[in-house]
């Protein structure tokens, strides 16, 4: 899959002020029936974004919009950074969740914590999930809500976020994942470089635990 990669991104921030946002909320199950990886953006947060019940394949342009939902407010249009609360992305392993976020236009999600599988799935799809301390996230929420058009400047190479007032925050990101994100590397290709090691492991394992290789 080709990813739009970034090393540096300055963009509007949308605040999603709820804890434990689950993958059913990010992309409801009826949209999981697609056999493609694309086209999920219009159904991101479907149940919160629209007032009716969405069906796959439907044109969302004519659907009634929930004006209260954050992504429907004009000041957050064009947001590429999502600010979220703790345990974001909990629930299922569906990669449709990061596909939908990416398709909508989000490149970065900032939260105090993420669910493990979702966190992992983000990197595989060119989304950078950033974990920041809860107090800091809280203060970002206040700043974003106080000022229309609030932007953050995220630099993946330097691992910094620059706030509107010029303050810089550092964030952690796993070196291997950062490398893949910056270079758009294909995990499978990288692993296959080690195919001899895999074969060696298999040969050894076959001796130790032969039943694992005769299960069919």
């Amino acid at each position: 899959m080709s990813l739009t990669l970034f090393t540096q991104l300055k963009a509007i921030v949308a605040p999603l002020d709820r804890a434990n946002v689950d993958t059913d909320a990010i992309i409801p199950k009826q949209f999981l029936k697609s056999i493609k990886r694309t086209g999920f953006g219009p159904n991101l947060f479907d149940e919160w974004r629209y007032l009716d019940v969405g069906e796959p394949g439907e044109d969302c342009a004519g659907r009634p919009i929930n004006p209260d939902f954050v992504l429907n407010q004009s000041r957050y249009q064009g947001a590429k950074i999502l600010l979220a609360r703790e345990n974001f992305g909990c629930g299922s392993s569906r990669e449709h969740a990061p596909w939908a976020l990416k398709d909508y236009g989000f490149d970065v999600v900032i939260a105090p914590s993420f669910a493990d599988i979702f966190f992992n799935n983000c990197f595989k799809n060119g989304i950078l999930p950033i974990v920041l301390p809860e107090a800091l996230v809280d203060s970002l929420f206040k700043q974003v809500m106080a000022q229309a058009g609030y932007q953050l400047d995220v630099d993946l190479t330097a691992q910094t976020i620059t706030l509107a007032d010029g303050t810089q925050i550092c964030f952690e990101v796993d070196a291997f994942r950062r490398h893949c994100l910056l270079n758009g590397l294909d995990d499978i290709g990288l692993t296959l470089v080690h195919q001899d090691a895999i074969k060696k492991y298999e040969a050894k394992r076959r001796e130790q635990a032969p039943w694992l290789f005769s299960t069919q």
Partner: protein
Amino acid sequence: MAGKTLYDKLWDDHVVRQEDDGTALIYIDRQLLHEVTSPQAFEGLRLANRQPWRVDANLATPDHNVPTTSLEGGVDGIEDPISRIQVQTLNSNTREFGITEYGMGDVRQGIVHVVGPESGATLPGMTVVCGDSHTSTHGALGALAHGIGTSEVEHVLATQCLIQKKMKNMLVRVDGQLQPGVGPKDVVLAIIGAIGTAGGTGYALEFGGQVMRDMSIEGRMTVCNMAIEAGARAGLVACDDRTIEYVKGRPFAPTGDNWEAAVAYWSNLKSDEDAVFDKVVELDGSRIQPQVTWGTSPEMVGSVHDRVPDPALEADPVKSAGISRALEYMGLPPNMAIQDIQVDYVFIGSCTNSRIEDLRAAAQVLKGRKVAASVEQALAVPGSGLVKQQAEAEGLDQIFIEAGFEWRNPGCSMCLAMNADRLPAKKHCASTSNRNFEGRQGAGGRTHLVSPQMAAAAAVAGHFVDVRDLVEVVQ
């Protein structure tokens, strides 16, 4: 040097290579596939002109989209065209790559997490993955099992490996003895209530203690199934005689000399006495009451004798807002007694509670009783064709039907409502599934997670009730 945890042992035995920063290539013994999270993975293989590394390590079955009403017409008989295409795509992909599939109409078809252990495709000591978060279920057999995303499904297909970093070790020890009428589902809901939905994030969660040792393998599956609801990708229970007894004779289980060798290896699949866990949580099993969730996250749970909380009494503003929002969605006033919540739908099924023991437990409550007139629909959905067959051989289907339940064909059904089985908006459902998220069982639907006994009792009473007040429960 301290001893090893079960997770440490499983991890060490599967490391193919390790980078200095701890990133490792882990060998995967078994991949289970279903129709929802595999199409894009197979497509990726095709686009890159790659072949599966080890075809025989994969096993597929459709479950999420299959209708549970009638299997007539097979795949082509699925009414929803988009669902049909997804199931057909699984068929054509498995055919193209030579992967074994238990397709619709095959008695072995069912929910992937029921089928894996039932067929012996999941064995102790294995690494097991599936593009589904409830893969944690298989840890009940002493296997290292967790859910993965579709990119990783493709990665495992192509390389038989996963790129992983080791998780931390957590032990949840449940000691004592459960009261009659309290089962594995209540245990795991109580654990999630205690540690929260993010309590296990970053950990491999081993369940131990007397309660787990006394528990059947199917019960352990119920507990491990919901490890992910506590934030842990993998749940684990030590392998013991019960495990080995359970595995014996299953179609994929080893035989002859291989069996002897396997049993010898499996007997070491437990945490060493002196193993050190990064975190230990203890619960007194004898104090666990039948549980009912009242909110929109599995951690929003309490005893059937509790009242729903009052957001005004919660000091943390984020939590208080969360409770208010959940109660509004659920249509419940603060402080309402859980037993006063009326039940409109009942769903007995899902990878959490659709095995034969679950159906027996529910049938024991339903025998000679009727579903309350106010209940609009009550579904019993066995986890696989083989579970259904067994239940019918025991006459359980008749008990369900006579009580007023619909006896369905296997699949995920109303657990997530990807097929036609949906909970209507604003309706309350006593459900044996694992997620009570907003819209999970149908847009606007209101899910309460309970054990099979408690779901059956709610069906009879028309509202939540302590199953022990309704029947004398035999353990």
